[in-house]
């Protein structure tokens, strides 16, 4: 791995899904754009995110399962599809790795840039998808500190069982980042908020 960016995966990040509300998340959009732009110097890109199965995926973003009209395509799981949508202008060859459990598909040889697609808890406030869970804020703070530290060990310390309980989709993708980083990195978290009760974390490891 040469460099990595991490982004959240709310379907409403994609304007065709969010309708008019897409423009309300300007800071998030800018943070994602800037983080993804750091990946452009690599020869190839690997996108990791939660999926129904731990395996390689191919295809395109298909918003139809969310009720949005779209092409009839061989579909990527939404987390990977959002990763594809975010990196659509980079012009790099891309592999998509889905994560459903602790099994991690092979990344392949040679240097690559990594886009890590996943979210913090979905239980940050009473309007959150999973309602308020008192553990959620601390969990997201631990994730933010681990991502900001650039220390793989701190990321690996995040508990996937607690993550599942809090509806966090980022833990396994972040563990892949930790494994790929091999050593502490220069790290930056540029966005850490929960505007819809879901913890969104954006940044880079270089």
């Amino acid at each position, binding site marked *: 791995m040469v460099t990595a960016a991490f982004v959240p995966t709310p379907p409403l990040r994609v304007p065709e899904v969010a309708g*008019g509300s897409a423009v309300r998340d300007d800071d998030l959009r800018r943070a994602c754009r800037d983080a993804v732009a750091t990946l452009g110097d690599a020869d190839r890109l690997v996108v990791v995110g939660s999926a129904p199965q731990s395996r390689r995926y191919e295809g395109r973003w298909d918003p139809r*399962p*969310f*009720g949005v009209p779209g092409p009839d395509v061989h579909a990527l799981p939404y987390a990977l599809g959002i990763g594809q949508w975010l990196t659509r202008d980079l012009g790099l060859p891309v592999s998509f790795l889905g994560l459903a459990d602790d099994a991690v598909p092979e990344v392949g040889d040679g240097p690559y840039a990594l886009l890590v697609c996943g979210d913090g808890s979905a239980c940050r406030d009473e309007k959150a*998808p*999973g309602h308020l869970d008192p553990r959620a804020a601390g969990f997201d703070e631990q994730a933010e500190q681990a991502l900001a530290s650039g220390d793989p060990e701190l990321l690996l310390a995040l508990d996937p069982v607690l993550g599942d309980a809090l*509806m966090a989709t980022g833990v396994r993708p972040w563990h892949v980042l930790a494994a790929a980083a091999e050593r502490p990195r220069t790290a930056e978290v540029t966005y850490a908020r929960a505007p819809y009760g879901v913890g969104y974390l954006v940044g880079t490891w270089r």
Partner: protein
Amino acid sequence: MIFRGKPLPDGSLVMAIVNRTPDSFFDRGRTFGLAAALDRVDEVVAQGAHIVDIGGVKAAPGEPVPLEEEARRVVEVVEAARDRHPDVVLSVDTYEPAVAEAACRAGADLVNDAWGAPHPETAQVAAAWGAGLVCTHAGGAAPRTRPHRVQYDDVVAHVVDTLTGLADAAVAAGVGQDSVLIDPGHDFGKNSRQSLAVTARTDALVATGWPVLMALSRKDFVGEVLDLPPDDRLEGTLAATAICAWQGARVFRCHDVVATQRVLAVVDAVAGRRGLAVGKRGLA
């Protein structure tokens, strides 16, 4: 349709919402007190509601309500409403068999199992009392949860398959064939587009042969079309109501009884399901 010996007339019908809750999203506790709840019952019956749906727990996530407390809230209203309005169909909005049992004992005629039958024995309770049952699609969501990135290959097919299965199971449990309603569960386990898709294909639900109940009133799928809060969703609700009634949905669960009745009357008149209240124009 007949619920515990009370037949309902042909045409589109109104089920009025009475929330004996401190925190439901639209009325926010307005009818939480027993006297206020009974005033509301009297009001909606006077307005012509055919069914009164009494609930003791709000749909959204929040403080758990113990079963005894939920039962107390609804039973007090059902008992008094039964006494005041012997011919009106009284419904209890609950997914808990014990609460359905207590409400039926107090005189409820219909069990509105609005969370996709998390407890299948609720159908047996309805059957034992000769009461009706509303079978609802919630996409497998646990009761009182919000949808989070829910995906369907074909939401309409999923709703139709689930509801025909639940309706058949209800009849197998002993609920009368003409005492089952199906409800696609707008907003329950669905994002707004998915609820709109179900609205557009009401005909597919009607084609199952089961009478269709639509619970549309002031919900988020209307609010997100318009970007308006619950207080400002009446017109949008009525538009969806007309669309569903035109396609053959039979019962409309609503907060606004008079407005809904008027919309349904016009739809039914256009559809030839009802005549004019007055027929003078050009005929003198």
